[in-house]
């Protein structure tokens, strides 16, 4: 039976796997966007996302817990001073995985994993779309108000 079996082994021993996830998450925090295989990218999500959530607590204890997970001082510093303020109060879902196609050589499915709040191109576009939407909604509201006003006038004139 394979009831409730979670996660990928990635063909590694437990210690090798733990080291891999640490290294990948350090790379992601430093570079904000990394290219890796799809399986590793998906597995990395389950490692970094709780880590970022933990980092948002921001007290000494959480700081030490994170230091215990990523052994690199500079990376933890970057996480605390740069990543956490940018993430803000996003309720989880800090990362995005986009498939990139197969790698030459071993035909492995490749993917890009990035911190959502650091993708300036996508975020600028999303903000523009939001503005457009809100502008549209406002103009619609105004139109309705004008129509309502007309109706009121008509009824009063009668």
């Amino acid at each position: 039976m394979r009831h409730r079996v979670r996660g990928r082994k990635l063909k590694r021993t437990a210690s090798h796997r733990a080291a891999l996830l640490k290294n990948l998450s350090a790379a992601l925090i430093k570079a904000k966007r990394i290219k890796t295989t799809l399986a590793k990218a998906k597995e990395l999500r389950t490692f970094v996302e709780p880590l970022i959530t933990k980092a948002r607590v921001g007290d000494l204890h959480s700081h030490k817990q994170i230091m215990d997970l990523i052994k690199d001082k500079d990376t933890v510093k970057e996480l605390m001073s740069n990543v956490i303020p940018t993430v803000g109060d996003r309720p989880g879902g800090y990362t995005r995985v986009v498939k990139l196609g197969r790698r030459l050589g071993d035909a492995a499915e490749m993917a890009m994993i990035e911190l959502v709040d650091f993708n300036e191109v996508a975020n600028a576009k999303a903000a523009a779309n939001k503005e457009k939407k809100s502008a549209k909604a406002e103009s619609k509201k105004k139109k309705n108000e004008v129509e309502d006003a007309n109706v009121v006038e008509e009824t009063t004139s009668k």
Partner: protein
Amino acid sequence: MPNPKRKMSKTRRDKRRTHYKATAPSMGTCSNCGELKLTHHACSSCGYYNGRSMFIPKN
């Protein structure tokens, strides 16, 4: 040990293999540049996915 009684003829072997086929990957056109791209993947020529630019391609 049990063994096949007869040699499999070339015809029989090849008939079996008529069903061994490769399937073409599902492709679509990129909404940004119109280039052919793999579905559910970022466009390899312009880096767009889901109507948004995800990255700038290197070349």
